[in-house]
């Protein structure tokens, strides 16, 4: 039985992926901070699974999770999906939530990947998946630290796609745009439309197919591909659009007075 590791597997894209891969016959090992939601997801899976409960913002928890994971047989697929956001003008934001964003979204995947590689816990010929963000192409005013973490993750994935080639490990970077998850709902400007967001189930299928086809880049959906292309050829236009669509609508935006 093939084995996969999915971080942030209790909700959102991670949950959809856990369900999708379980249906596809994988043993699913989830990692999440939310024990109750993790148990609920595990009970919906069609096959065997395991869950590690860990707060990936905590150094101690990351070390404990890594120690637990390296005791298991190698994983065929490792999906770094766990991510959080803290939206608001950087100038007015508190530092602590921004630190958490960078710890969970970037530092934890760097630490876990190194530990899994060191212990040879990513199977030869396996796949390593990093869930970055469309913000890599268009910027994300109002979430500068989130944008930083996702750019860092994309760069790391690109370096590993080269350095892990001799080990036969394939690396996929996913750049989702707006997704219909609780996470996206919490961090969108008030009144934004749900209908245009991609359902996580659809994204999960696209990710599974991209890994099976050993693709290296997945920008899911035509609208997101258009945004990414615009960001590539006309970054300033994309930045202005992001400012108007997101930053200017945030309750905390506008020039801060100190």
């Amino acid at each position, binding site marked *: 039985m093939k084995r996969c590791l999915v971080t942030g597997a209790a909700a959102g894209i991670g949950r959809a992926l856990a369900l999708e891969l379980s249906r596809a016959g994988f043993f699913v090992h989830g990692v999440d901070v939310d024990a109750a939601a993790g148990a609920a997801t595990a009970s919906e899976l069609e096959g065997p699974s395991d869950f590690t409960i860990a707060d990936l913002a905590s*150094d101690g928890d990351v*070390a404990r999770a890594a120690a637990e994971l390296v005791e298991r047989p190698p994983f065929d697929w490792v999906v770094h999906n766990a991510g959080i956001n803290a939206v608001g*003008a*950087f*100038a007015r*934001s508190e*530092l602590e939530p*921004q*630190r958490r964003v*960078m710890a969970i979204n*970037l*530092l934890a995947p*760097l*630490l876990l*990947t*190194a*530990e899994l*590689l*060191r212990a040879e816990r990513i199977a030869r010929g396996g796949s390593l998946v990093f869930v970055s963000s469309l*913000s*890599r192409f268009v*910027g*994300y*005013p*109002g*979430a*500068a*630290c989130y*944008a*930083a*973490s*996702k*750019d*860092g*993750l*994309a*760069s*790391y994935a*690109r*370096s*590993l*796609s*080269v*350095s*892990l*080639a*001799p080990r036969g490990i394939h690396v996929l970077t996913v750049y989702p745009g707006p997704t219909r998850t609780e996470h996206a709902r919490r961090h969108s400007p008030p009144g934004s439309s749900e209908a245009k967001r991609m359902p996580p189930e659809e994204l999960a299928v696209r990710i599974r197919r991209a890994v099976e086809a050993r693709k*290296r880049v997945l920008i899911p959906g035509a609208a997101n591909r258009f945004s990414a292309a615009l960001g590539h050829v006309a970054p300033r236009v994309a*930045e202005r659009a*992001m*400012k108007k669509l997101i*930053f200017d609508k945030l309750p905390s*935006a506008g*020039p801060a007075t*100190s």
Partner: protein
Amino acid sequence: MAATILLTGATDGIGLALARIWAGRAERLVLHGRRPIEEMGEALFTPEGYCRADLARAEAPAEVARFLEERGVDRLDLLVHNAGTGYFGDTAEQAGRSIRETVRVNLEAPIELTHRLLPLLRAAGGRVVFVSSIAATMPCAEYAVYAATKAALEGFARSLRIELAGEVDVQVVRPGATRTGMHAKTGVPPGRIDVERFPPAQKVAGEIVRAIDSNRSRTTIGLGNKLLVAAGRNLAVPLDGALRRKERRA
């Protein structure tokens, strides 16, 4: 030329060269470094103008902010995040401690310091400069975490620039390999590269100063580096494929 400047990582390499350029020009130059002042032989480093703090420690940004406050610095025309660290080698061999330190020094420290000093920058209508690297724009098999922190720093700078437009300027400058002690410090095996072939820190620093004065939001230093960045950005598929083949043969 900016009146009040704060420069991090000023004791070696590109930072020291920048400090020497600005020493004669700035009205007030505050330098930051990790080394004790007694080690610094130059008149450039004075107790009033040199703040010693280890950016690998979580308290460092607060210490730097306090240093400025205690000396009555209430406005900053220019904040240059130049301090950086790295690790050269196989990703699987980089210890967790080293990964954490690289993220701390290269990414979290500049972000937190920017956050703390924004009021001073705003008071002066000032400018923040992030010293990145061409590594941010291409695959770096042996520098994966370093490159990730630089790419993250650029991502932060980009979104911050949009947020602060009209109030505080945000710039990124990207040097390539430079003739400094960085390569040896990060663990590049001797003989692997010829550091003497790289441009000297003094020359790179001069170009960085010109890039800052130019007002461009992002500048790659040096023609060869500009070509590398353009290839990393626009020819990713063939470039990465060639690098993978090279890696498999090695």
